[in-house]
């Protein structure tokens, strides 16, 4: 247990240290989402859309930072580690692989939370976006469940990506726009008459969808705990499924990778 915690700390430390060592990456991860957020806000303004939609875009943009981190900082991480030669060290070290993933997730959560807050703050400075909070307790619950579910999914993907070679970055790339579409990054998804119910149900499987919608209800629409009960239940179910599934997938796929000799295979 102590050994696992040390692994978690060691891997999280790398993530946090990266904030200082490569500050331009952190700056990029704030500015890049802001560019697309600004474009979509201008688009809404050009249509004289309701003000709350501008705030919706800002919340979606902030959560985009988490999704990007889940995709590129978690899912593809073992692939990068393989490319940079670290994966071999992880595999020969007498440590829990799950602890490595948890460390990556904790480090990623902390620095991405900082970036997401910066995105919202700068967005509020640049555009007429107003946020208000009535129920901080519900916000904390939704936020913790959201990032747990998101990083649980990231851990699951990281295990699956162990099998991938060159296709890893393409698959991660493919999980961008279609997920933005389904999760309602720039528009409401559930309170939307243009989206069929079946699509809404399918979209609920993605933690990002419930996370964004819950946060919008609490931060933009002055919602309370009872308004996000379904989101809390949905996210709790996702956490309960994704974390054990990630653990199982990691063991299984590590085994397959070892059998097929893919763990150190580059240039596939």
């Amino acid at each position: 247990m102590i050994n696992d915690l040390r692994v978690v700390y060691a891997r999280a430390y790398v993530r946090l240290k990266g904030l200082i060592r490569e500050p331009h990456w952190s700056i990029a991860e704030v500015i890049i989402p802001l560019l697309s957020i600004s474009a979509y806000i201008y688009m809404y303004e050009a249509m004289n859309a309701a003000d709350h939609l501008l705030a919706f875009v800002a919340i979606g943009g902030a959560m985009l930072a988490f999704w990007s981190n889940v995709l590129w900082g978690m899912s593809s991480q073992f692939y990068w580690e393989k490319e940079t030669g670290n994966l071999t060290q992880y595999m020969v070290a007498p440590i829990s692989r799950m602890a490595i993933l948890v460390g990556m997730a904790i480090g990623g959560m902390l620095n991405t939370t900082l970036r997401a807050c910066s995105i919202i703050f700068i967005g509020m400075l640049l555009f007429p976006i107003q946020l208000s909070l009535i129920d901080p307790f519900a916000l904390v619950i939704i936020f913790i469940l959201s990032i747990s579910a998101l990083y649980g999914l990231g851990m699951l993907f990281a295990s699956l990506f162990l099998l991938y070679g060159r296709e890893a970055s393409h698959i991660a790339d493919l999980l961008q726009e279609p997920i933005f579409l389904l999760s309602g990054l720039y528009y409401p998804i559930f309170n939307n008459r243009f989206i069929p119910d079946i699509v809404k149900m399918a979209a609920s499987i993605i933690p990002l969808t419930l996370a964004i919608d819950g946060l919008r209800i609490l931060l933009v629409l002055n919602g309370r705990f009872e308004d996000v009960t379904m989101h809390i239940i949905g996210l709790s179910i996702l956490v309960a499924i994704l974390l054990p599934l990630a653990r199982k997938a990691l063991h299984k796929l590590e085994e397959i990778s070892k059998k097929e000799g893919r763990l150190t295979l580059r240039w596939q």
Partner: protein
Amino acid sequence: MAMRIIKESIWIGWKIESNWTDPFIFFSYIIVKPLAYVIIIGLIFLIGSEVVNNEYFSYSFIGAVFFIYPLTMIISLGYLIHEDRAKYEVLKNIYIAPNAIKFYIIGRALASAINASVSVIISIVVGGFIFSNFGLGLDLELDIINYLLLIISLILGIVAFSFMGMILTSINLLTNKLQFSLSEYSSGILFLFSGVVFPPTMLPEPLYLFSYSFPTTHFLELVRVSLNGSFALSPLINMIITTSITIVISIMLFNHADNRARELGIIDRKAEY
């Protein structure tokens, strides 16, 4: 010789971009991503506008669809040096071939343009069909399109975006840490400042003027004009001017980066093991 290098690099570009998976998944990939992106634009339009305004919808939709060209080409060229240097380790071999590097980059840009063309055609057909069911028409009539102007716009656009991509390759020759952020910055800046989904006049005054320095702004304007079946000289002249400036700047930058990289001995420098 130059044509042969370009032809071969288009072929290499096509192979690298497509053979990571089977053809079915690859075609799904080049269709699903851009299609999702244009559907997002359409949904924003449906949700944000109380009154259906087909003219503005066409503006945003056409802008978003044809922005796939600069997006695909710039992202592809933004990773090119990193991939060839660190991942495939072939950059040194390309350098050894006489006068190959610039034509190789152009060829790789053209390979991306081919992929982008497939995405554009599918997006415009499928996206247009989806949103016509919601009363949003594209106002596109095949018999009134100014095809000559459309072809000229596409040729000029592809040339401009190839050389814009060459600017990124110049920067990446001198660094091995910016390949990801540089592509994302460039595509994000172009998306915001090129009048893709909203008119550039919506931007505050100095930024609004800044948007007209990009070939992408004039490219999208020209495409919109040609699809309406009309002709406008001013965006065509602006497109030619900005494309010419882009070509000059990118060649100067590339030559400088190339010389500097040779002096520093970093042409085959790797950040990975």
